[in-house]
C-alpha cells in the first residue's frame, strides 16, 4: 500500500485563511439554494425510494422495483426485518418480508403488502457520460424525501473484492496436503460444513497443488460465487459447495488514513460485478436508494459508500436483470 499524499492541517489553515471571503452554506453544492434547483426531480425520489426504519431510526434506503411491493436494498445493512417498517412517499408499510439475497451484488429483495406503487424504470441500457448530474435520496423528512446531488465521476467497472475472495478457513500444509486448521465463523466454509482436519483435494474440479495455487484461483473469483470443493474426511471423500466471501468481509481489514477521513463508509464496499461511481455526499445509511438523472431516468441504485469522495451504484441495466432473476427465484 503506497503512502498517499494529502495533508490534514486543521490548525495550519486557520491563519492562512484570515481575511478570507466565505460562501454561505446555503449556496454551497449541498446547500438548500442549490438543491432547490433540482426540485423538479424530487417527485421521482418521493415515489420510488423507500426508507427502512425501526421506530424513528432510519436504517437504510431502498428502491421500489414493482407496483405490488418489491423493493431492493443493500443486503449487508439489513440485520433483521423484525420491527422494521418501510416508508414510501408518505405511507408507512409494516411487516416487510425478505424474499432473496444476492451475495455477489450485496442486494436483498424485500416484499411489502402494497399495490399501485411507482417502480423505477430500469430501461436505461447505456450509462450517461461522466459529468452528468445525478440525484439521490439524502436525509429524509417524515413525509418527504430530500434531494442530494452530485455527478458521474469515473469509469463504470467491476470492483474486485479487496484482497481477493476466501473460503473462510485457515490451512496448514503437511506432506504436500492442505489440511483445514480452523473454520471461520459466519463464512461460506462454515455454512458448507467444513471441519478442522478435513483435507482439501479439489477446488472447482481442479486438483489443488499447494497453498499458492489455491490463493491464485481465489483471487479471480467473485464474492458470492458458489464453488464445488472436494474434501477427504477420514476414509471418506465427498464434495460440498462453498460460497466465497470477500477477504475483508470475513477477516476484516486495517483502517487506513483515507478511511479515517471518510466518516461512516459502507463496511461491505468492494466486490461488485459492475458499478458506476459518483460524488454525491452521504454515508453508509444512504445506500440502497435509486439514483436519477435530470430527466428522472433511473441510472442505478446506490450500493456502497467507498470513501469520502467515492460512492458506487449498480447500473440500471444490471439492476434490471438482477430484479428479474431474484423475483423469479423468489417465486412470486
Amino acid at each position, binding site marked *: 500500500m503506497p503512502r498517499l499524499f494529502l495533508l490534514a492541517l486543521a490548525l495550519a489553515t486557520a491563519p492562512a485563511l484570515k481575511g478570507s471571503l466565505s460562501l454561505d452554506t446555503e449556496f454551497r453544492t449541498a446547500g438548500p439554494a442549490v438543491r*432547490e434547483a433540482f426540485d423538479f426531480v424530487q417527485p421521482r425520489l418521493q415515489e420510488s425510494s423507500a426508507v427502512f426504519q425501526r421506530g424513528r431510526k432510519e436504517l437504510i434506503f431502498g428502491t421500489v422495483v414493482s407496483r405490488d411491493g418489491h423493493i431492493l436494498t443493500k443486503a449487508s445493512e439489513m440485520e433483521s426485518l423484525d420491527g422494521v417498517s418501510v416508508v414510501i412517499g408518505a405511507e408507512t408499510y409494516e411487516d416487510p418480508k425478505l424474499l432473496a439475497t444476492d451475495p455477489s451484488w450485496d442486494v436483498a429483495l424485500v416484499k411489502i403488502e402494497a399495490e399501485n406503487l411507482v417502480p423505477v424504470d430500469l430501461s436505461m441500457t447505456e450509462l450517461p457520460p461522466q459529468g452528468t448530474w445525478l440525484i439521490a435520496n439524502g436525509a429524509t423528512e417524515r413525509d418527504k424525501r430530500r434531494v442530494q446531488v452530485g455527478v458521474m465521476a469515473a469509469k463504470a467497472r467491476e470492483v474486485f473484492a479487496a484482497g481477493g475472495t476466501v473460503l473462510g478457513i485457515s490451512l496448514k500444509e503437511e506432506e504436500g496436503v492442505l489440511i483445514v486448521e480452523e473454520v471461520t465463523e459466519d463464512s461460506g466454509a462454515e455454512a458448507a460444513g467444513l471441519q478442522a482436519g478435513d483435507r482439501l483435494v479439489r477446488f472447482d474440479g481442479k486438483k489443488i497443488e499447494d497453498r499458492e495455487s489455491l490463493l491464485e484461483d481465489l483471487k479471480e473469483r467473485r464474492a458470492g460465487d458458489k464453488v464445488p470443493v472436494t474434501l477427504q474426511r477420514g476414509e471418506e471423500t465427498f464434495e460440498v459447495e462453498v460460497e466465497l466471501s470477500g477477504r475483508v468481509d470475513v477477516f476484516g481489514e486495517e483502517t487506513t488514513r483515507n478511511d479515517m477521513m471518510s466518516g461512516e463508509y459502507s463496511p461491505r464496499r468492494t466486490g461488485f460485478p459492475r458499478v458506476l461511481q459518483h*460524488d454525491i455526499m452521504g454515508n453508509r445509511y444512504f445506500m440502497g436508494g435509486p439514483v436519477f438523472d435530470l430527466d428522472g431516468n433511473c441510472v442505478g441504485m446506490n450500493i456502497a459508500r467507498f470513501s469520502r469522495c467515492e460512492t458506487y451504484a449498480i447500473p440500471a441495466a444490471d439492476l434490471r436483470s438482477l430484479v428479474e432473476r431474484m423475483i423469479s427465484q423468489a417465486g412470486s
Partner: protein
Amino acid sequence: MTHRSVFWLALLIPLAPLSAERPAINDKRAPQGREDLEEIQRLYQQALPAARAATVCIELGEGSGSGVVVSEDGLIMTAAHVTGGVDREFTVRFEDGRKVKAKSLGLNSENDAALAQIVEEGSYPHVPIEKTDRTRLGDWVFALGHSGGFDKARGSVARLGRLVRTANSTYQSDCNLIGGDSGGPLFDLTGALIGIHSRVGARLPENMHVPTRVFLENWDAMQGGEFIGEGPFAQMPKKGKGFLGLLAEAHDGEGIRVKRVGRESPAEAAGIREGDILLEMNGQPLTSRDDLQALLEEMAPEDKATFELVRDGKRQTLSLKLGDRDA
C-alpha cells in the same frame, strides 16, 4: 526566417483556448432550475476530457500523489509536499496507463506549490493555466485526482463543486479530496487550471487548493529549481544529514578500503562493495576515514557523490545520491 515565424504563429493559434470567457452561470448565486443545471453540465462535460488527459498520477518512492501537465513538453504543476524536494526522480502515469519519467524542479515550501518536468521527450496532453484572476467566490469548479492511488479501470476521480472560500494563498472548495489527490488540478468550467490540491481541514467540506496565482508569483524561481522558504510543506535537506552507508578504513596504499556496506543504503544501491578501494569523492582525494567524514559533514541528503574507486585492480567511477540520516 520570416517564413518560419509565421509558420510558428499559425501553429500557436489553435493552442490558445484561454480566450474562453468566465461562464455567466457563475454570476448566479444559485442555479435557477433545470436550464441552469444543464448549462453547468454542458460546460463541465465539454471541459472534462482534456482535463482528464492532462491529469497524472505521481509515484515517488513509496508515495502516490497527483499532478497536471501544463505545457506540450511536459511541465507539471503539483504540490510541494508531493515532490518534497528539488531534483527528485519519479514516475508519472497518465490516465491511459502510459508511464514516463520525470524530475522535480523548484518548489515553494511555504504555500505548497511545486513544478516538475517530464524528462522523456514528447508531445503531452496539457491544460491552460488561468492567468487573468477572473476566479471568484462561488464559481463552479471541478477537481480531478488519483484518489487512493492509480486505478486504471477507474481512472482519475472527478468532483464538481463551488469555491466556498477564497484567500490570498488558498482556495477552498466543496469538491471532497482524499489521500492521493494532493497535487491534482482544480479547474473552472472552461477547463482552465485555477488551483492545485493541497490539504483538507478537520471537517468534511474543507478542501484546500493552492491558487495558480501563487505559482505564477514564483514561476521563474521554481522553474529554475529553487527551494523557496522554510516549510511547513517541504523541508530543505540539511547539511551534515547526508547518509552514505559504508564503513571504510585506511590501508597500505592509496585511498581507503571499504570494510562494510550497509543494507539498503545508498552505497549498496549504487553498487559499492566490500573491498573496493575509494580513491576520490567529488574530486577530493581520500586518504583516511576522516577525509570522507569531513566531506560528508558538508553535504546534505540528495547531494550527489561521485567516487573514483579501484576494484580487482581496475579503476571505475560510481555516482549516487546521498540518503537522509534521519529517515
